[in-house]
């Protein structure tokens, strides 16, 4: 009799768990948007780094640690982007799965002060975005098998949207003459974009926002820009634009607009979703390249 009561109680306990939405925490806004697109109303996503934030140098608050502890699933982009994530996970006591969205991507490397490091900004190529979506669908289906069909359908739809964006980018870049496909920007985060769509990016500082530029590097970059006749410059919403304005002044280049690379804008801003951000970046950069 008592065992029957105990069994009934345990089943009662188990039932509500699958009815509530999956509590997912993503490391930054771009990833959070992708998870939201796939998850739909079955997943409640929150982002640790907020809109216009910088995912390289995030300083978590105790509230973030608490959210992490209560999460069912944690998404990171990986490839060394979120250097602060390991310590935060450990501090918060989260013991669940950590989904690395960039798993399976063909990475590119870069020389940085003599060191070769892996470029973490994989999402700036829409084709890589499709890989991210695949990993997200897999992870969500594993955590919430009942919603697997919905995730797969959302994933297919979203991946198709991203593939179309990929095609759009190629098409737009093709309208720019090959010798003019150069962009000047303040953060070297467009490596994958450049490789995928054939655009050359010039920048004064390396990947991390913490490195300080030297006079020699700045001078070389000015020379290079003058030699390559770049006429528009871009700064990211998450970086200090003073240095880039200095370089642009020496080379008589003009501002080409604000690019969103590592963070989405606020919901009422110009880049509220990953797809919108990508399309906008392509449009702005192609317009600038045509002026070269």
């Amino acid at each position, binding site marked *: 009799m008592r065992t029957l009561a105990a069994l009934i109680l345990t089943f009662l306990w188990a039932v509500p768990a699958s009815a509530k939405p999956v509590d997912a925490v993503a490391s930054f806004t771009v990833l959070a948007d992708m998870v939201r697109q796939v998850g739909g109303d079955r997943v409640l996503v929150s982002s640790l780094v907020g809109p*216009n934030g910088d995912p390289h140098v995030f*300083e978590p608050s105790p509230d973030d640690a608490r959210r992490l502890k209560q999460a069912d699933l944690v998404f990171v982009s990986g490839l060394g982007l979120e250097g602060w994530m390991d310590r935060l996970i450990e501090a918060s006591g989260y013991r669940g799965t950590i989904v690395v969205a960039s798993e399976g991507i063909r990475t590119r490397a870069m020389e940085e002060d003599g060191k070769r490091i892996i470029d973490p900004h994989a999402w700036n190529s829409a084709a890589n975005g499709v890989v991210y979506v695949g990993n997200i669908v897999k992870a969500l289906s594993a955590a919430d098998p009942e919603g697997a069909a919905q995730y797969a359908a959302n994933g297919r739809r979203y991946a198709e949207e991203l593939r179309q964006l990929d095609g759009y980018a190629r098409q737009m870049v093709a309208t720019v003459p090959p010798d003019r496909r150069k962009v000047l920007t303040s953060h070297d985060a467009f490596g994958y974009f450049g490789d995928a769509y054939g655009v050359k990016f010039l920048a004064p500082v390396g990947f991390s926002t913490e490195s*300080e*530029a*030297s*006079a020699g590097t*700045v001078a070389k970059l000015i020379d290079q820009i003058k030699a390559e006749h770049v006429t528009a410059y871009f700064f990211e919403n998450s970086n*200090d634009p003073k*240095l880039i304005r*200095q370089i642009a002044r020496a080379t008589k280049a003009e501002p080409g607009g604000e690019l969103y690379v590592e963070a989405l804008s606020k919901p009422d801003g110009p880049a509220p979703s990953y797809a919108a951000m990508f399309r906008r970046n392509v449009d702005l950069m192609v317009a600038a390249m045509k002026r070269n």
Partner: protein
Amino acid sequence: MIAGLYQATVAPFVDYGFMRRALVACLALSIGSGPIGVLLMLRRMSLVGDALSHAVLPGAAVGFLIAGLSLWAMGLGGLVAGLAVALLSGLVSRATSLREDATFAGSYLASLALGVLIVSTHGSNIDLLHVLFGTILAIDDNALDLMGAITSVSAVALAAIYRPLILECFDPGFLRAVGGRGSLYHLVFLVLVVLNLVAGFEALGTLMAVGLMMLPALASRFWAPTVPGMMAAAAAFAFASGLIGLIASYRFGLPSGPAIVLTASAFYAASLVLGRNGGFLRRWWPRPHLAA
């Protein structure tokens, strides 16, 4: 060989606007901050600069809350906070038995904690001070004008209050006895300190602003026996460090701020050992006294 020397030292400044602006900024900083650094050193307030770089946080935070990421608002807020801290510590050291170094420590720690509180409860995770503090390579004409103006005002003001200020340093009792308002001059001096430092932070970053204020002053101590002599030596050391540091940053690709401050440190170390006026060698192996 002359051509090689020209290429190495003069050519970078002739070719690049940003190098010229950086050099002029160093000149302004040397003339403005050098003498002030000497007085800070003599009054045992050498760590004030570093403390002030933290003390400006609540002002910058309030400026950010009011006007967003506006350098004007944040700079003005920082100035107000810095002034409040400096003046408060000046007043407390007059009114109680604590000396200036202690009262300053008390004020700046409270200010820093307040700043962190404001940022954590209302701000985003953008590192405000990182945005507010500049780098010498990114200095533009407006910042240069501001620095020039502040240097001019500060040099003239220091000249005007020089006599009562020195008297106040050496014999405050006498100054009180003859009816001079010692406190007033001391407070004017503190205002000049904060003005130079906050402008320096915004234009050049904390390392350079504080480094070029204190290190040349410390080096000058070992060469000149009089205060005006020390001030001149400090300004000379500061400008020389700026020049050499910029050239080193250009030739060897070193980050500019640290290169300049390390050059100043090298001057300081050399002065420690070789200085005529109380340096290490002269102390241990004194010259023979004049006979009869």
